[in-house]
């Protein structure tokens, strides 16, 4: 157990990698064995991640389970990982959704099964690594590593214009992360010049900033902020950098869409919260009105565009733009409710949008089309699927007692109480997004599920299979749990979030 | 006022450059070869002005005497008819001239504008030209001061010979087919 406690994070990153290696050695013809192995490793990682929840001590604001080893000592690059209240649930989300997406790909992926699961597991390792890294160099490495498996998932197993979507995805994100690399390196040298210590270590940087040992000129801070922001904003995506997202989401296979929407987008918001806000406090203040404006445009624009989409999956994709706008808003209102709401909404979005993509995937597997006009009255042949769909739709809209409500409510409360100019106006505008969300989701549900069966092909569609139930039921249970008893989740965030909002004053140390 | 030495130098230099231009613009290879000989002669003349008599002699004997004669042999053996028919320049020569003129102007302005800072090293006597033997000096420089480059040059010659053999073999094998 002692070993487990001290190396759990490394274990979390390595288990999927080992799984990928094991898969690589298996015979590619035995699809069933491959699926089971992949599932086994996914589940194992998830179980390990639950250990984090069990042993996480809620009162502590710092990083827990930290591991800190020299990697490239010549330049102060370290393997430093740790988890706090902000990243804890995101890690769980990543491991959980990986298991779900492996299950969801059982039938849908027929060709090149082996490679598919290898890429899924590698992607998982990358995602976990991003949330855990506390060394900016390490963070960047994981950030980039993740691109490659996602690229292949979209490019090989996607639909229609998959290669176009994959290339667009990788170029957009690569441009963003390239700028981030420049900013990371600049900070590295700024820190070294100010303190004489060459390090990429995030907690050390934070300490130096808090104690004023590292003082960054506001002008430079603005540029660095923008470089980080470019990378994260593309990932989120914040309007107007969102144009890669509908393509990538729509063309990706179901598992890819689930992980993309469920976890990858959260890396953007996580990055904003963890790095932008904490490293550049002055610049954050400067850019807050601008970012909030973009977030609100994103909320409304995403909702309006989602409303007119004829393609089911594209609609869900645009709804992501809208929901992520809420998250960004929550982060930048800067109070306890807003930030916790934002983190909570990240989890909600992972579950509800992940669920929506899963259901769209299931319908697609049956009908091989995603045109809303092709459907209608699907509830008649598939009552169980319709029920699940309803619950997840409601969770996405933010109905009380379901998870979405808690997140949106917290963000809006945070927004009204925020100490920024015109907070009430901003928040009211954002609140209309909730209404729009309800409109397009319910309208979509009505057109797809309710009414008479209009198409002959839809009459004999089979209902949920056993495996599909196993995919959806945990999601629905989680949505209920998070909606009814949010305190369980929020409690573990409290300490870290309040530390983030009120950084402890470190005494100035004279050199 | 220019001294006779300077006049001679400029005359030789101008002739050398002009005939070098002629070398690459003549259609007839024999003419090119003859102009090349003129250039080499002018350079030998400049060597003489620098009191490098031995070098001047070597220049004339080796380049003008040996290599150029070889050149002319080759030219006469190759089919001249087809050579003079082929286009000698591709269509980019306009651009080439443009670039050259721009460069020339550029260098000219750099030197002109920086005239104030232009400062050449004081005229050093070219060793004891009158007391020591000219070829002896060359020997010292070549075999002592620059011994290593001289040795490396022997490898360069080896490579050149290998290259020549490969080229020669190529002709044989393509004739054989």
């Amino acid at each position, binding site marked *: 157990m002692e070993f487990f406690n001290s190396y759990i994070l490394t274990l979390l990153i390595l288990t999927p990698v080992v799984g990928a290696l094991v898969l690589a050695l298996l015979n590619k013809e035995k699809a069933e064995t491959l699926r089971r192995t992949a599932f086994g490793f996914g589940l194992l990682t998830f179980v390990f991640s639950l250990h984090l929840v069990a042993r996480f001590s809620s009162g502590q604001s710092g990083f827990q389970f930290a591991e800190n080893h020299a990697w490239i000592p010549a330049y102060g690059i370290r393997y430093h990982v740790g988890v706090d209240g902000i990243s804890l649930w995101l890690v769980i989300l990543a491991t959980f959704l990986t298991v779900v997406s492996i299950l969801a790909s059982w039938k849908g992926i027929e060709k090149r099964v082996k490679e598919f699961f290898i890429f899924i597991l590698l992607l998982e390792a990358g995602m976990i690594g991003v949330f855990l890294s506390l060394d900016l160099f390490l963070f960047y490495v994981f950030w980039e590593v993740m691109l490659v498996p996602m*690229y292949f998932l979209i*490019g090989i197993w996607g639909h229609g214009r998959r290669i176009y979507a994959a290339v667009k995805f990788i170029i957009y994100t690569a441009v963003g992360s390239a700028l981030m690399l420049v900013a990371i390196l600049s900070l590295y040298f700024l820190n070294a010049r100010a303190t004489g210590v060459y390090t990429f270590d995030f907690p050390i940087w934070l300490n130096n900033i808090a104690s004023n040992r590292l003082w960054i000129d506001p002008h430079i801070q603005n540029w660095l902020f923008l470089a980080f922001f470019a990378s994260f904003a593309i990932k989120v995506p914040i309007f107007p950098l969102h144009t890669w997202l509908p393509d990538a989401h729509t063309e990706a296979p179901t598992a890819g869409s689930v992980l993309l929407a469920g976890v990858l987008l959260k890396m953007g918001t996580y990055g904003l919260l963890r790095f932008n806000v904490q490293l550049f406090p002055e610049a954050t203040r400067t850019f807050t009105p601008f970012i909030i404006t973009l977030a609100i445009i994103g909320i409304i624009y995403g909702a309006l565009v989602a409303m007119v989409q004829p393609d089911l999956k594209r609609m869900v994709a645009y709804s992501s733009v809208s929901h992520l706008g809420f998250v960004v808003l929550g982060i930048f209102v800067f109070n306890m409710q807003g930030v916790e709401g934002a983190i909570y909404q990240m989890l909600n979005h992972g579950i509800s949008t992940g669920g929506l993509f899963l259901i769209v995937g299931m319908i697609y597997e049956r009908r091989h089309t995603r045109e809303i006009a092709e459907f209608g009255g699907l509830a008649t042949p598939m009552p169980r699927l319709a029920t699940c769909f309803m619950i997840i739709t409601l969770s996405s809209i933010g109905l009380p007692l379901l998870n979405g409500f808690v997140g949106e409510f917290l963000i809006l409360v945070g927004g009204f109480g925020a100490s920024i100019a015109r907070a009430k106006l901003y928040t009211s505008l954002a609140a209309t997004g909730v209404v729009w969300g309800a409109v397009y989701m319910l309208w979509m549900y009505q057109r797809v599920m309710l009414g008479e069966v209009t198409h002959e092909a839809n009459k004999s569609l089979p209902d949920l299979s056993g495996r599909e139930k196993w995919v959806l039921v945990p999601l629905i249970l989680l949505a209920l749990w998070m909606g009814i008893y949010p305190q369980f989740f929020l409690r573990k965030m409290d300490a870290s979030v309040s530390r983030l909002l009120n950084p402890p004053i470190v005494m100035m140390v004279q050199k | 006022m220019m001294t006779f030495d300077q006049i001679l130098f400029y005359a030789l230099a101008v002739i050398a450059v002009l005939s070098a231009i002629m070398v690459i613009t003549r259609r007839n290879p024999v003419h090119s070869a003859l102009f090349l000989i003129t250039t080499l002669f002018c350079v030998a003349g400049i060597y003489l002005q620098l009191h490098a008599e031995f070098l001047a002699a070597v220049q004339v004997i080796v380049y003008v005497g040996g290599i150029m004669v070889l050149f002319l042999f080759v030219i006469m053996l190759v089919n001249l008819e087809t050579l003079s028919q082929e286009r000698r320049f591709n269509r980019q020569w306009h651009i080439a001239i443009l670039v050259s003129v721009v460069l020339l102007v550029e260098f000219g302005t750099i030197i002109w504008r920086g005239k104030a800072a232009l400062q050449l090293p004081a005229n050093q006597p070219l060793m004891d030209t009158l007391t020591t033997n000219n070829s002896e000096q060359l020997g010292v420089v070549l075999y002592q001061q620059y011994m290593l480059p001289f040795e490396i040059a022997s*490898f360069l010659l080896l490579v050149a010979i290998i290259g020549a053999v490969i080229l020669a073999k190529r002709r044989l094998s393509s004739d054989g087919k």
Partner: protein
Amino acid sequence: MFNQYFQPNDILIIYPELLLALFAMGVMIIDLFLDRAWKVLNAFTALVGIAYAAYALYRLKSNALNLSGYNHAILNDSFAIYFQFVFLIATALVILISARYLSIEGENRGDYYALILLSLIGMNFMVMGIDLITLYIALELMAVSEYILVGYLRTNRQSNEAAMKFFLLGAFSSGILLYGISLLYGISGSTDLRVIAQRLAERPSHDPIALVAVVTLTAGLLFKIGGVPFHQWLPDAYEGAPSTITTFISVAPKAASFALILRIFIVGLKPLETSWVPVLSVVCVLTMTLGNITAISQSNIKRLLAYSSIAHAGYLLLGLIAGNEYGITGIAIYFLVYAFMNIGIWTLVVAMRRKDLIGDQIQDMAGMIYKNPGAAVLMLVFLLSLAGIPPTAGFIGKYYLFASVIQTHHYVLAVIAVLNAAISLYYYFRVVVVMFMSEKTDEEKMTLSPGVLTSLAVTLVFTLLIGIYPEPFIRFAQNSLSLFQ
């Protein structure tokens, strides 16, 4: 026998080169006695020569000799020794892949290996030389060997044409270089770079002659590394040359030319830094951008890699512009990395040369994942490394170069460079698309000889190892910092 011009340990300093020369001639002589079927022994002889030279070099590194020799014509410091190791590694890998390729082309002769070894000697002197005459002769030795090797396929028109172009432009650039050298000699009265640096420092800052000398030197040297606007020869030469030779000239001579540039600019022309940094910055931006943008539209893998190598030359110039410890270490480690990843990818291109198929179109790789899954995965690793994606070695190299310019506050350059790196993903991944996402067009598998397999194994292991655990390699590359002494 000994005097100030020739010391006993002078011979010891150039011991590796003497061994190489011995083996170069040995290969040619042994070749005479070999039957057609036994020509592969030539490669073996050459490899033994390289092994001996590497051992001699290792001894040289560990014995603390007075490493300046031949009346200060050469300086075999740890900078030079580091680069010589890189050349030896690259050359050994190239020889490994050459034997089978040459026998397919029907040109399996000993002089090929002799020329490679002789150009290796030239490169070694290029990094050792501290005297302009030595440097120039060494450069020519390398270059002339290259010209011949590029045209080595006697019956192949493209190879001949490439050699001709390469030779003419190469000779022209050497002339320009020589002009620059003569100007430097004219204003400083010495060919020793250290003396030149002293004299230049004494001269007024905007000395026009010095400026012209810098411009001409830069032009001549940029040609050798394929910097824009002196890059036009490069794609033609890379495409036309025998693939193994392209492998060779894309790595070792490029590294040698860069080492030469470092020596000249950091040691000799340091006093004129303010005038060459802006010039090189412009060249660097042009080289990266043009290389990457042109690479996007290529359909021939050799040309694509040629343009990518132009772009890489641009990244490398960043290290020179920064001119600090990060930059020099960056260039040094980049070439070590580049040796492995570039030779790796070219080895695969060589292996695609089959009896009846040239195999140099990107389309020829269609569906490679079905035919040769191992090769496809290797190709992916090398492409990722070229693109600079962690955890491959290429990332470490790029990281250093980008970091170096950020340290010297060249932020604009850094941003342009990273954006270029992002653009380059586009064409590297185009190859990936063809390999992994298109259907196969033919059934023919690759020709993988033992030599090719060895080369692939070595390059793969190091491409990943340097990426994951770079520490020892960085320490190794820091040897190059002796340049500043």
